[in-house]
C-alpha cells in the first residue's frame, strides 16, 4: 500500500510517500536524497548499505521502508560533517583509512554501533563486529586501527 511513512533520518523527522514494501536503500538514495548507504550487492552480503536503525546496524538493501516507520535511521551523513566530523570520521582521515572508499560509509556506521555498545573493543572485537563488511582494496588494518583510535578519543571525552 502506498502511503506516507514517517521516520527520523539522521536526527530529522521526515515523511516519505512510499509503497510499504519499497526497499529502504532505494528510498534513502532516491527520494530521501542521502548517499551514504551504498548499493553493493542487494543481498545483505557486503555491508556497503549498512545503516543504523534505532542504534542497531542493518543492511538497508534488506529492509522494507515500512520496517523503519517511527524509528531512527542513521547513515554516514548522520555521524558528522567535514566541519564537525564524528571521531570515527576524524580517525579515518587521520590514518588515511581508505582507498576507493566505497565500503567506508557502511563500515563507519557499523563501527559506531560497536562503539556505542563496547567503548573499548580489542582488535579482535572490532574485526568480528566488522566481519560482514567487505573491503576489496585491503585497508582492513587501517580501518581496525582507526576504529580503535576513535574509541580512545571517545573514551577521552571527544564529542560524538
Amino acid at each position, binding site marked *: 500500500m502506498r502511503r506516507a511513512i514517517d521516520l527520523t533520518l539522521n536526527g530529522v523527522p521526515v515523511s516519505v510517500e512510499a509503497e510499504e514494501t*519499497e*526497499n529502504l536503500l*532505494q528510498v534513502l*538514495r*532516491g527520494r530521501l*536524497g*542521502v*548517499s*551514504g548507504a*551504498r*548499493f*553493493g*550487492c*542487494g*543481498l545483505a*552480503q*557486503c555491508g*556497503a548499505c549498512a545503516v543504523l536503525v534505532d542504534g542497531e546496524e542493518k543492511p538497508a538493501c534488506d529492509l522494507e521502508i515500512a520496517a523503519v516507520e517511527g524509528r531512527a535511521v542513521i*547513515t*554516514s*551523513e548522520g555521524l*558528522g*560533517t*567535514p566541519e564537525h*566530523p564524528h571521531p570515527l*570520521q576524524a580517525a*579515518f*582521515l587521520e590514518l*588515511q583509512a*581508505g*582507498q*576507493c*572508499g*566505497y*565500503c*567506508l*560509509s557502511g563500515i*563507519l556506521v557499523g563501527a559506531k554501533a560497536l562503539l556505542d555498545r563496547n567503548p573499548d573493543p580489542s582488535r*579482535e572485537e*572490532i*574485526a*568480528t563486529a*566488522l*566481519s*560482514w*563488511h*567487505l*573491503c*576489496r*582494496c*585491503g*585497508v*582492513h*588494518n*587501517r*580501518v*581496525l586501527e582507526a576504529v580503535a583510535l576513535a574509541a580512545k578519543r571517545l573514551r577521552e571525552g571527544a564529542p560524538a
Partner: protein
Amino acid sequence: MIPGMLAANPRLDRWVSFEPDGRVRVAFGRMEYGQGIATALAQMAADELDVAFARLRVVPAATGEIPDEGLTVGSMSIEFSGPALRTVCAEIRGLFTAAAAARLACAPEEIEVRDGAMLRHGQTTGLDYWSLAGDVDLVRDATGEAALKTPERMLVIGQSNARLDLPAKLFGAAFLHDLSLPDLRHARVLRQPSPHASLLSLDEAAVRRAVPDVDILIDHAFVAVICETEADAARAHDAAEVAARWDGVRAMDPALSEPAALKTLPHQDFAAGAAPAGPSNRRRVTATYGKPFLSHGSLGPSMGLAQYRDGKLTIWTHNQGVYPMRALAARITGLSPEAIEVIHGQGPGCYGHNGADDPPIDAALIAIRRPGRPIRVQWRREDEFGFAPVGTAMVMELAAELDASGRLVDYTAEIWNTPHTGARGTAVAESALAGYVPPPPPPQRLMPDGSRFSGGLLNATPSYDIEATRTLEHVVETPIRSSSLRSLGGAPNTFAAESFIDELAEAASQEPLAYRLGMLGDPRGRTVLMRLAEMCDWTRRWEAGTGRGLGLAYDRHRGRGAMVACAAELEVETEVRLVRLWCACDGGLIVNPDGARNQLEGGMIMAASWTLKEQVKLGGPGIVSTTWDDYPILRFDEVPPVEIELINTRDPRPFGLGEVSQGPVMAAIGNAVAHALGTRIRELPFTREKIAAALLA
C-alpha cells in the same frame, strides 16, 4: 628526452595554468580511483613549480579538459605520467623565472621561487606566477629540456600528504553512483545470456504488467527497459528476464573452471629467450602451478550515465580513462569522437578492467535510441560478477636445471593463459547489436627492448642471475570474457616461480633465503631481501611440518621495476590462518610514503585473498559464481597485521607500486603453507579441500 606522455600532449597550458585567484590549475590524464594518484601527481606538480600544495586545483577528468594519457593502468602513473607532469612544471618554472629576471634586469639564476613568489637573493620582488602570467605564453609546446629537481631539493615529494579524494568518501555523496541529474531516467539492459545468443521473443505484455509505463527498447538482441525510478527499472528487468526466450545460449562446461582445462583449448604458441636446452647430465626439476579465473570483485557494481541531445553524446563514467571511453563509444555508436564528451566520476576500486566500461556504453546505446533525457544504468551485483571481464586462469609448467653445486643455471617457464588484456576496448553490449563484427585485435605491443609484450610473460622468469632462461607461452582462446586484472600475469608468475625456487632450494639441500641470495647479485635486491629476513626474524624458522609455517619470496617487478620481498607466517589446520605478513620494498623515489604503504598493503591483502579463497566458477551460460557467497574474499577477522618497510626512498627514479606486492606475498604464503604442512600445494586457491587432498596424498 621528452617523456612519452608529454610528447603526446606537448602544450604546456594543457597541463598547468595560473588562475586569477592565486591558485594553480593542474590537469593530468590519470584517473583517480582510490589509489591516490591524483594526490601524488599534484605533489609532483607543487614541488616542481615551488608552490604550496594547497594552491593546486586538480582539474576533474573529462575529455577536452585534461591531457590524453590513455588508460590508467599497469602501475605506470608515477613512473611515466609523473615525469611528464614534472617536466612541464619545471619548464614553466624556468619560463617564469626568466620572465622575472627580464623585468628585474638580472640573471635568471638569481631568481628562486617560493610558494609561487619570485625571490631575488632571498628578497621579495613583488613578482609571482600570477603577476607575471601576462609575460609568459603557455600556449606553446614543451621542449622537455628543463631539469627536474634532484631528491635533496624536493619539498613536497616524499611527504605523506593526505589524499585529496578521501574526505568526500567519508561524509556521504562522493561517487558517480551518487550523481543526480535533472530529468533522469533509469534503465536496465536485459543481457544476452551469452555472446551470440539471439532473442527469439519477449512477452512485452508481461513486462508491462509488472510496470505499466515501462519504455521497452528492442534492437536486435539489445533489450533495455527504461523507467522513471530505479525500483521500476529493476522490477521491469526482473519481469523481462522471465518473459524473454533466447536461442543459441552457450552451455559452459563447468570443468573449464579449472586451470588445467586451458590446455584443452585452441591456442597459439610463442617461444622466447634462450635456445632449447640440449641434453645435459645436470639435475632437472619440474613442477606445475595453477591459478584459476579471478574476479576483480569491485565492491560497488559498475554504473554509468549517458545523454544524447542535438547530435551530441555525453557519457559519465568511473572507468580507467575518458579518452579510451570516447574511442570505445565512437566505435560502437558510429558517432565521431568530436560528438562525444566523457566526464569522469569516482567509482569503486576496479583493479584493472572490471565492468566499469560497460554500463556507460549500455546507457549510450539507449540514449542514442531515446534522445533527450539522461539515462542511468546501474549494474546489479550478479551483472558485475557475471558479465564483467575476469582475470585469466593460468598454468605455469616450470623446469629447472641445477649445476653440481645446486645453483639454478637453466630455467624454462611454459605458460598457458588467455590474453591478459583480451577484452580491452570492447563492451559486453556490442555483441547484441545487429551486424556485430568483433573488433580487430589491437596491434602487438612491444616491450622496451622490442620483444613481444604479453601480460602472461610478466615476471615469467625469476629475478636472479640465471645463465639461460626461456619462455614458451600458449595463448589460449578464452572460454569467457577475460581482461586485465591487477598485475596481469605478473603476480601468478611470481607465485609459481618463487614457490618453485623454494622447491629448488630443497632439491639443492639449501636454506631458501641463502639459496636466493646466492643467485642475487643486484645490491638493491639483496638489501631488500636481507631487510625482509630481519623484519620477519627469519633465523627463528623451525622444522617443516608442524602446522605453523614461515615463508618468503622476492622479485623485481617485471624484471625492471620495484624490488619487493614478502614473508608470511601462518597456521594450517583445516584452513589457512594468516598470522602476519611482511614486506620490504625498494620502489625508488617515493612520492607519498603513506600512499605507497597503502598500495603495497592493499595489494598484499588482495593477493592473500586470491591465494586462499578465490575462484570464478564457470557453468550455465557463463559464470555461475555471481554472489559474494559464491565468491568469498578475505574478511576483517581473517586479515593479519602487516608490516611494511620502504627502502632507498630518495633514489631519483620512482617505480610504480600498485601491483608489485601481490606476487611476492602469494609465493610467501605458498612457501609458508608448504613449510607448515611439509608438503606443497601448487594450485590456487588453498581451500580446505586442497589442504585435505595435500595431506592425504
